[in-house]
Every structure is written in structure tokens, then in C-alpha cells.
């Protein structure tokens, strides 16, 4: 598979995708078994599965966009393909001429929304009990990656008694940030890692500054 022949800025935050690793995501993305979400005028992220399914759907959207782009150039008709029909079935009829790009933009919005959900959840002292389940799954996936990849070298926390719901958010942010660097494979420059590092840094700076100001008084 090759990357869609489109400018990078069209795909925005999707640069984190592993373009050669679709097979590891656990679905047959060409079979059409996994139904892609229909594009809507105002996408609702909570109606779309995230985590592994999200990645697979995003990948399938990119794959189909690339294929459609190729077909439109070569003039080969692909009618009858279920996935392509799904992609080209627009909720908004005026947008039917760019189904692949539309899907990509939609998925980009969803990823952006997940990032913002995690950011707002980590701003409190502890995770909110009603945190969006998709965002929580994504956060837990980054935490899980930390325990797999980083914990053996930094075995400070007690793994058996560690509970994400009781843990301070600054520690969750620091853990997820390290996990995210490995999960995305971008050496820490991906959107999730930078966001989590920023949240963690704000917590640390505020705590230290607050302690200093109290001491001064």
C-alpha cells in the first residue's frame, strides 16, 4: 500500500499512522466487514469506536482514499465494492465528489477531539468519573505501553496497587506521555505526547510555584 497522493496538511494529525503496519491492527480492512462511520455534517465522536478500531477505521479510510485517487486518474470503475460504496455514500450530497478526503478529515476531527477530551480530563486533580469511554481507552492504551516499554527500566511505582482512577492526574500525564512516545514512534513529537507533556509541565509548575508563593507569605 502506498500513501495517498495528497498534501500533508490535508491529513493533519494522521501522520502518526504506521503506513506499513495495517496487518497488526486486527481487521481485514479490505473485506468491508468493518463498517466505516458515515460522514455527517457535525461528527459526534462518542458514536464512533476508538482505540484499535479507531486506528483501523482511519487506516481503511486512508486506503480507500488512495485507491479512489488512483482510480479517478486511471478511469477504472470500482463499482460494486462494499467499502467504496460506503465511503462514497455521503450524508451531505454536496460533498460526494471527495469521499476519501472527507473521511480523512472526519477521522482527523475525531482524533483531535479525543486529544482535547484527554487534555480537559487531566486538568483536574483526578480523572473525572464520567470521562468519555473512548478517550479513557486511548489513555489506558498509552499507560499500558508505558508499563510494557518503560517500566522495566524505571520500576519506581508499585504496579499491583497502582490504580488509574485514584492516581493524581499529573502522574497519569507523565506516564501516558512516555507511553505515547513509544506508541506513536515519533520520538516524542507526536500530538498526544506534546499535549501530555504540556499538561504535566503545567501541573508541576503550578504546584511548585504555589508552594513557593505560600512559603513567601
Amino acid at each position, binding site marked *: 500500500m502506498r500513501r495517498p497522493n495528497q498534501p500533508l496538511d490535508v491529513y493533519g494529525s494522521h501522520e502518526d499512522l504506521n503506513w506499513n503496519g495495517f496487518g497488526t491492527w486486527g481487521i481485514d480492512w479490505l473485506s468491508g466487514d468493518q463498517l466505516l462511520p458515515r460522514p455527517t455534517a457535525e461528527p459526534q465522536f462518542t458514536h464512533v469506536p476508538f482505540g484499535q478500531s479507531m486506528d483501523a477505521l482511519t487506516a481503511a479510510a486512508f486506503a480507500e482514499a488512495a485507491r479512489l485517487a488512483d482510480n479517478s486518474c486511471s478511469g477504472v470503475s470500482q463499482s460494486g465494492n462494499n467499502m467504496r460504496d460506503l465511503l462514497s455514500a455521503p450524508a451531505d450530497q454536496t460533498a460526494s465528489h471527495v469521499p476519501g478526503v472527507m473521511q480523512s478529515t472526519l477521522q482527523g476531527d475525531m482524533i483531535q477531539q479525543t486529544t*482535547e477530551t484527554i*487534555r*480537559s480530563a487531566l*486538568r*483536574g*486533580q483526578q480523572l473525572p468519573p464520567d470521562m468519555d469511554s473512548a478517550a479513557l481507552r486511548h489513555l489506558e492504551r498509552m499507560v499500558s505501553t508505558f508499563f510494557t516499554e*518503560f*517500566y*522495566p*527500566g*524505571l*520500576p*519506581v*511505582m*508499585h*504496579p*499491583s*496497587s497502582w490504580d488509574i482512577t485514584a*492516581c*493524581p492526574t*499529573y*502522574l497519569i*500525564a*507523565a*506516564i501516558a*506521555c*512516555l507511553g505515547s*512516545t513509544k506508541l506513536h514512534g515519533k*520520538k*516524542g*513529537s507526536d500530538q498526544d*505526547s*506534546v499535549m501530555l*507533556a*504540556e499538561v*504535566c*509541565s*503545567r*501541573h*508541576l*509548575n*503550578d*504546584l*511548585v*510555584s*504555589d*508552594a513557593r*508563593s*505560600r*512559603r513567601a507569605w
Partner: protein
Amino acid sequence: MRDRGVPGDPTADGHQYVLGRAKYETIEFATTVLYHLVYCMGAMIPSFNESAENLRGILVRILRRAGVYRSSTTVDQWSADVPSNDDLRHDDSRDLRLAWDRWCKAEMAKRLAWSVFEYDNSLSTLTAKRCMVSLQELPERLPCNESLWEAHSALSWASMIRLTGNSLQGNAFRPTLRDVLNGNLEMDSTALWWKRCCAQTIVRLFWDLKETDNSIVSLFSPTSFNASQTAFRKSLCTALERLQDSATTPSRPKELIYVK
């Protein structure tokens, strides 16, 4: 009310980040700083690199105030809470649970102290900057055996103590280091993290010697001063090579990262 919002960040009102000093000098906070430092140094983002340099001093200061790093003249409050192997009442589940919790907190502090020392030492070696953690401040004990640390419950933890005989306090650091330097340590039965702690300490001793070599004192010191250290430097090199050669047999999959 303080305004701690980041300029340009419309979602930042600052209020929710304020926790206060009670949350400042804790092990969890220090652990967060350590993990954040690791990211900052690895991300290669200049602003984060500068932040890491500032936070390193804060991290060491937190551990000093919390009594994790301490001088030899002060009382080790963390170890005082750790029960001895003989004090455990294996027939009382509630007592076991309390003892497990106390031990976990003390062990976490000790592990954090060693991890921060390793971070500080590695960073100083790589950047040719002076270390912040003194060797005299290090905990008297090495981290406990991983079989105790990874126990999933108080009962399994107590069972592992009874069956393996591993100490809840961990091995004494200085005698272990002395055995490493003298070649008396049984390498195969020694935990790989202990070897790593000893290796970091030896590297630190080399760093101190390099400081002496480069200092102005060496201009005025007699030749016999450097010659007298030759045997000591050779023993350090030999011990370091011995530690490196012994890192070949991991006991668990997680120790694969130590194997050369």
C-alpha cells in the same frame, strides 16, 4: 486568585491546576518529575530541555526535604516504618495488609532515590555537567528483590518472604559495593539492578577522579599524587568490566534490557 493560564491557550483558566504544598513534597510528585524529565531529555525539544534542567534541581530538593536523600547523621524515617521479616504475622490478614502498605511506600521511595541518582549520573556523564546527588546521600539499602515487589497481594508477598527469605530492607549498599570492588561478589545470584547501581557509583567515582585531574590542584600536586591512585583506578576499571561481563543471564523477561 492566581492566573496561571498559558498565553494563547483558551482552555486554560489555571484554577484547576492549583493543589498546594501538601501535594508538592510527595513521592508521587517526585516520580512525576522524574518521568517528565525522561521525556524532556528524550524529546529533543529545546524548551523541554531547558525545563528539564530546572526540574532536576527541584527533584533532588524534593527528595532531600522528604528525607529520601539524607546525610548519615539524620534518622532514616522511611526505613523505620518497614517491618522486619520476623515481625510479620502471617496468620493476621489485616496486619499483613498494613505491613505490605508500609513496605510499599518505603520501597517506592528507595527505588525513586536510586532511579533519580541513575538519571542524574547519566545526564552528568553525557553532558559533562556536575552531578547534583552526592554519593553520601544515597540510601543505605539497595532496592528489594523484584519477586517481593511484583507480588499481587499481601498474602503472596508474605508467602514470598517466607519461602525465599529475601530481606524486606534490601541488601546493604556499601558492603555490596565493597564486594564488587574487591571481586568478592557472587555475580550470578546478584540482582541486575544492584549491579547497575554499583556500576553507576563506579562511574561516578571516575567522574570525581576526572574532576581532580582537570582541577587546578593537579598543576601543583607532585607526580606521586597521581601515581598513588593508579592501583585504585585499575581496580575501578576491573570492577566495571566484571559487572559488564556478568550481565548475561536475565532471570525475568523484564531484565532483558540489562543484558549486553
